Each structure stands twice: as structure tokens, then as C-alpha cells.
């Protein structure tokens, strides 16, 4: 059983900037929604109905299709105690699973360390994008941050082939002779060797890849395509991460939000199609989250920072449905003008850790949290 679980990959898509929950899963039959959102709303006739009360934003078409196939869990009202409406702090809390104080380790960094205790595979975790998100940061845990899979590695600026070959050969020689050197030089040599090894392996992924699925030409779609390539190449990668945005729609929300979701939903749809086409649907699960939702009342053009939000867990292993509770819009139920969260994000983390990755959640998320029964494996 344990070995069967160990190959599962978790794909995390971070929607940076604070995704507007109300306009993503729309309470289209609730008069209060249209009262509070006189301008920045989705008309009832436009939503993609989930049931009599809620519907997807029309830009989430591909996710609606997955929902109809029973592959989407909507985690309603997700958040954490004493919400912080700062992007940075709130994202930090999601990244470190530590709402009370400034945390030191990223939750996925801990996951990678737990999955690969000796650091045998430098590709256990990969971030697609430049700069490591704190979620993946953990002392002594190597994580590749890949801007572009095709050019990842040394000297992406060096185009001319002969110079490039000479330069790479020389680099390998310069970092090769570790014998007789001190610990620092030895460490640098080993690290460079790991980095080149990782880069060499990673660059093979696009070469092996063939697919009929078309991904759009935007960065989230391209990142998910790269993830699919790495999954199909079987490099032992377990954690995939990327971020997209900005969902910080203080103004001009309707147009921006629609465009962003078309891109994200399109990318997710293509990725799932690709997995299916390659018979790999059982191997990956997606978590889509944002640091907070937005204010209930619109500001005439957008909506300001809020608290309670929505997350999605997507994959064939999902028991499709609505989880958590959609927060009430009634004034007395609001939290300082926001949707009141009713489940801690660490419940969702714990669910994925234990039921999908087969890990003990408590040391990773800093405590015991109730889990959702949103995966099929949990029912069996």
C-alpha cells in the first residue's frame, strides 16, 4: 500500500493577489449578493450552474466540465483565525502553515524533506517560475526553480553552440576536482554537480514529450505543460508548484478576473486532458488556492481585500462536490465586511498530506486538523 501511494504527485497552483470568491463560485440566486455587488457581479443568466444556489463564473468553463465529470472538490469558506488582509503576511501564513507567528519553514519544503529524507532526488520538488516561494523553502532541501524547461541550466544567455560546449566542459572540469579541497570547495562542487544533473535530466523531459493536447500561450498554461512533461518523464518529482496572477482586483475587476480565470481554467483543463491522454490521471492531484477572498461589498469597480475564500482540489481521485460551507452574506454573519471563513486551510492541507501523499500531517501543518472526505481513496 505504502509503495502504491508514494508515486502520487501534488500540483499546487497559487492564485496570487486574492481571488474574488464571490465572483468565482457565484451565489446567483441570493439577492444579498446583488445588493452588495451592484456593479461587480456576475449576472444570474451568465453563470454555469452548479445547483440552485451556486454557479461557476462563466470563465471557469473547463473546470465546470471537470466538475460535471465528478473531478472537482470545491472547498468553501476556507481561511484561518484572525485573518490578515496583507497579501504578504497572508501568503506567508499559507506557505508556512503558521498563522500565529512568523514561520520558518515552508509546508511543502517539509513535505519534500519527509518524502526524500536523504535528498537523493534533487527533483523531488520543482517550482515553475523564478525565485523560490516560501512554501517550498526549507533549510537543506534542494528545490529546482525552473523558469523555462527548455533552457534551464547554465548560461542560458550563451547561444553560440561551440562557445557553449567549451564553456560547459570547462565548467565541469573546474567543479570536478573535489579531492584534496576543503569542505566548502567540496560542497560547491557537489552542489554544482547536482544542479547540472538536475538540469540535464529536466531538459530530457520536453524532448520525450509528445501530445495532441494544445496548451495556450500564457505562463500558467506553459507551466502546467512543463509539469505534464516532467510527470510523463518519470523523474520522481512529487511536488509541483506554480503561481499566477495578479488577482488583486481593486479596480476593473470583471474584465481582469475573467481573463485570469480563462487562462487558469484553460490550463487546468488542458493539463487534465493531457494526463488522461497519457493514462496518467491517477498520478496527480491539483490544489488551487489564493491567500484570501475579497470584500463582500464592491467598491464600484473592483473589491478590496477580504478574508474567507475558496480552494479547489481537482483530479480523478477526487470525490466531486461542495465541501465546507458557503459563508452567509447576511450582515450579522459577516466578518468585518468579509465572508466569514469556516474551515482552516490546514484541514485541506492535512487531507492532501494524509490521504493523497500518505504522510503524517501534524508535523507538517503544525497541529491536528479535521480532514475532508473529498478523495475517493478516503472512502475505500
Amino acid at each position: 500500500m505504502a509503495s502504491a501511494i508514494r508515486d502520487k504527485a501534488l500540483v499546487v497552483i497559487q492564485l496570487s493577489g486574492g481571488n474574488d470568491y464571490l465572483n468565482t463560485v457565484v451565489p446567483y440566486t441570493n439577492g444579498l449578493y446583488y445588493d452588495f455587488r451592484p456593479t461587480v457581479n456576475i449576472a444570474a443568466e451568465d453563470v454555469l450552474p452548479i445547483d440552485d444556489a451556486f454557479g461557476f463564473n462563466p470563465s471557469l468553463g473547463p473546470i465546470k466540465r471537470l466538475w460535471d465529470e465528478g473531478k472537482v472538490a470545491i472547498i468553501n469558506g476556507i481561511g484561518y483565525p484572525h485573518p490578515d488582509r496583507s497579501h504578504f503576511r497572508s501568503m506567508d501564513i499559507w506557505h508556512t502553515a503558521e498563522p500565529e507567528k512568523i514561520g520558518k519553514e515552508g509546508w511543502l519544503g517539509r513535505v519534500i524533506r519527509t518524502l526524500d529524507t536523504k535528498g537523493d532526488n534533487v527533483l523531488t520538488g520543482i517550482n515553475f517560475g523564478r525565485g523560490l516561494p516560501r512554501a517550498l523553502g526549507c533549510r537543506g532541501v534542494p528545490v529546482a526553480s525552473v523558469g523555462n524547461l527548455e533552457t534551464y541550466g547554465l548560461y542560458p544567455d550563451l547561444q553560440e553552440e561551440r562557445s557553449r560546449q567549451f564553456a560547459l566542459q570547462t565548467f565541469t572540469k573546474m567543479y570536478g576536482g573535489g579531492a584534496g579541497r576543503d569542505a566548502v570547495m567540496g560542497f560547491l562542487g557537489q552542489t554544482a554537480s547536482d544542479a547540472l544533473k538536475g538540469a540535464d535530466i529536466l531538459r530530457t523531459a520536453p524532448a520525450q514529450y509528445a501530445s495532441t493536447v494544445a496548451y495556450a500561450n500564457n505562463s500558467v498554461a506553459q507551466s502546467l505543460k512543463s509539469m505534464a512533461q516532467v510527470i510523463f518523464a518519470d523523474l520522481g518529482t512529487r511536488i509541483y508548484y506554480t503561481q499566477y496572477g495578479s488577482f488583486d482586483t481593486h479596480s476593473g475587476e470583471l474584465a481582469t478576473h475573467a481573463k485570469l480565470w480563462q487562462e487558469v481554467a484553460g490550463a487546468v483543463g488542458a493539463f487534465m486532458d493531457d494526463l488522461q491522454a497519457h493514462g496518467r490521471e491517477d498520478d496527480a492531484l491539483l490544489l488551487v488556492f489564493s491567500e484570501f477572498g475579497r470584500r463582500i461589498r464592491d467598491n464600484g469597480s473592483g473589491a478590496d481585500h477580504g478574508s474567507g475564500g475558496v480552494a479547489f482540489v481537482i483530479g480523478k481521485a477526487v470525490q466531486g462536490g461542495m465541501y465546507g460551507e458557503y459563508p452567509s452574506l447576511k450582515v450579522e454573519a459577516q466578518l468585518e465586511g468579509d465572508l466569514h471563513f469556516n474551515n482552516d486551510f490546514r484541514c485541506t492541507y492535512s487531507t492532501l498530506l494524509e490521504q493523497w501523499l500518505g504522510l503524517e500531517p501534524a508535523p507538517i501543518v503544525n497541529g491536528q486538523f479535521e480532514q475532508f472526505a473529498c478523495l475517493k481513496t478516503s472512502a475505500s
Partner: protein
Amino acid sequence: MHQQDMTLMAHLLRRAGFGATRDDLEAYVAKGYEAVVEELLHPSDPQAMPEDIIRRYHVDQSELRQLDAAGANWLYRMITTKCPLEEKIALFWHSLFATGYAKLNQARALLNQIDMFRRYGLGRFDTLLVELSKDPAMIIWLDNNNNHKGSINENYGRELLELFSMGIGNYTEEDIQECARAFTGWTLGNAEYMAVRASKDSIWPYGRIAWHFEYRDGDHDDGEKTFLGETDRFNGEQIIDIVARQEATARFISRRLFQFFAADEIDAHSEQTIQEMMQSYFDSGYEIRTVLRTLFLSDYFTSEQARYARVKGPVELVVGAIRLAGSYRTPTLGAHQLAYQTFYMGQGLLQPPSVEGWHEGLEWVDSGSLLERINFIAKELSNVQNSGVRAIIARLAAENGGTLMPEQLVDRCLDLVGPLSVHDDTRAALVEFAAMDGALQLKGHLPGDPSERRVGNMLRMIASTREFQLA
């Protein structure tokens, strides 16, 4: 001019600054080592480019309340300053008194804190701690605005002792509480509102508001306190007086300065120097300038032992490479990208991962950050359009009629980027690289022609060495 003087001066400037070009080094060597140490310790006229010019031409720095612009602004000052130690000591204190944007949402307050480090960072340590305790960014960062008479918040009191002065094990939990009591009432003007604003992170509709220190007598616990065995009605200043005269404090600060300026690892050889630094700390009335002078003039620091004994931090690496390459010396569109570069390498300025600062030394390096480090500096130093690279080419072209055999090309380039001393294996690999195209003829060279590009490629390989990762 003796080569060993040049080598020692290059070492000093890597540590007390961000490296130096050959022109700068020649001027420094002419002044003599001790005179240069004094000059560095007494920064004056630091601005090669005045702040108003930087701000006028760098539209990307027009909003310094935002993180990226503020980080870029500080980096730009590091790149253009004529007083590098002033910036280096500010970077040291920023690493030690690590305050981050995440909780503040107000980068201007952080830049004000950095400016405070420039003003007080080489002066008396007790004065610096008082200024730190009044610093608005620090007050919000460690919750001293929530530290009230009758309802203390220990956060600042604890870190002042543990992370900022004495180190763990030199005080009790009761001392922390008494320390926190002494700092009650040390807050911000309109603190409650400002704290709410920080947590809301909204620049609408009124923008972010400047913060200033306010002492609230009515919220200060004026009762008797017992701190490190002494009892009185201490206020914050008296607590700092007591802290500053502890041997643990002298040791803690001397060790941290030693690790930042001399060597990542403290071994038996270093102990003598640290003892001398502690003595200077007490003799001078806790003056950091004097402690650093003792270090820079010490046998340890000036010996071979201290050479390349530190891993360059990302900010040092990036700023050093840019100062050497001579890029970004005039206002340059896209300079704000530099702030992202250090972030990609693991050191986002003004955004340390926690109050403990960054994990330095070898922990700067992992497989991801090493690629980022090498790719950035290799690109800067191989670009023959950059003025610093052109200066190196000009020097090479002026020697021996511009003809360089492969070994000469390697040795002259190693000399001009440092002098950088490399292991025999490294040098052999570089010579082999140079030999692939035979002797280099720079006579009659033209900007960007193949002969110049060979120099650029040699600098690329030198920037890629393990040795170049070290300071």
C-alpha cells in the same frame, strides 16, 4: 606597487565593501592599508549620485513605499556609493536586526530603518539599540505597539536579548518579562490605527502614512523591575545600558561582526581576534567603529587564513559583480530587476525570511541558487559593452602589444578581477579553455569583435569558478 599590497587591499574591499575595480584598488593602495581602513570607517560624501538624481531618473523607484522599488533603491546606493562600508554595515545590521516587509506593508519605514543603520551603525552599540527600540518598523515588526502597561507583549523584549544583543542562555524568562515591562509605552504615533492599516495592506484611498515613534508615559510601567540581578524603576534606556555592558553582549556582537566581515566559521585561530574585538568594545565605550578597526588590522584578518573564508551573500555577489562590470552606473531602465535577482538567489532585500535573518555561509548555496548566482554574474562580466569589462580589455590591450598567450590571458584576467587566487585545477581548466583558440591578439580590437568576446568569455568562466563564489 607590490602585488601583495594589491591582494590585501582587494581582500579588505571585498569585506568592508563590495569589491573594487583595478582603478579603485590602485588609488587605495597608494594611500596605504591603515589609511584606507580609517577612510572606510569614517564615511563622508558617500553619494557618487545624489538621491534626487536617482529618484528623478529611476521612475521604477518613484514609489518607495513598495517593496521592489525600495529594494532596488538600496541596491542602487550600494552600487554607486563611494563609502562602501556605510552600506555594508547597514547590510550587516539588516541581517542581524532582520525586519521584513511581510508584516509592515510599508517599505518606506524599512528604508528609514536602513538609513538609521547608516547614521548609527558604526557608532556606539547602546545608542544603536535605543534607536532600534524607537524604530517604527521594528515596533510593528515585533509587536511593541501591543506591549502595554499591565499587559505586556514579550516579543521585542525577548528578541532584543536573544537575537539582537546577548544570545540565548544569558538571561532568564523573568529577565525577558522585566525587559518587556521596561519597553511598555514605546510605540508609534496613532499606533492602533497604524497597526490596523498595516494589516489591511490597502493603499486606498489615502495611501500609506508615515510612521513616527511616540513614547506614551501613561502606558509605561514605571514600577520597580529586576533585570539581570539589578533592581530599579528601569525604563528602556536603562535596560539597554545594562545589556550593553554585559560580556555576553560584547562576545555576541564581536562574533557576529567576525562572521560577517572575516570568516563564516569561527575556529581556534579566530578566538584571539574575537577577544581583542571584545576588549575594544569595552575600551571604546561600545563603539562598533573601534571594534571593526581592531578586526581589520588584526593578524587574522590580514593573513592568508581569512582570504576566501566567506561565501558571498547574494547581495554582495550581485553588487560586487555590477561594480566590477561597471554596469548600472548611470540611471538605467530596468534597474529594479536587480532586486529580483538577489531574491532569486535567496536574499530578498527588506524581506528576510524571519526575525532570525538569513542563514548565511554555505547555506546561501543550493542547486537552484547556485545556477542563479553563476548565470547572473557570468552574463554581467562577459558583456563586453559594460564599461568595467571594457576597462579590463583596454588594460590587456595595452600590455605586450596586445598579444596574450593562453596562460597570460588567464593570469591577467584573474589578476584584474581580483586579484583572484584560484586552485591549480581551476587554473588548468581555464588555461585549457583559453588555449582552444590559441594566442589572443587584441591589437586593433574593436568593440564587440571576436578578440574582445574572447576576453568576455574568459571573464565568464572566471566568474563561474568556485573561488569567485567566495569573498
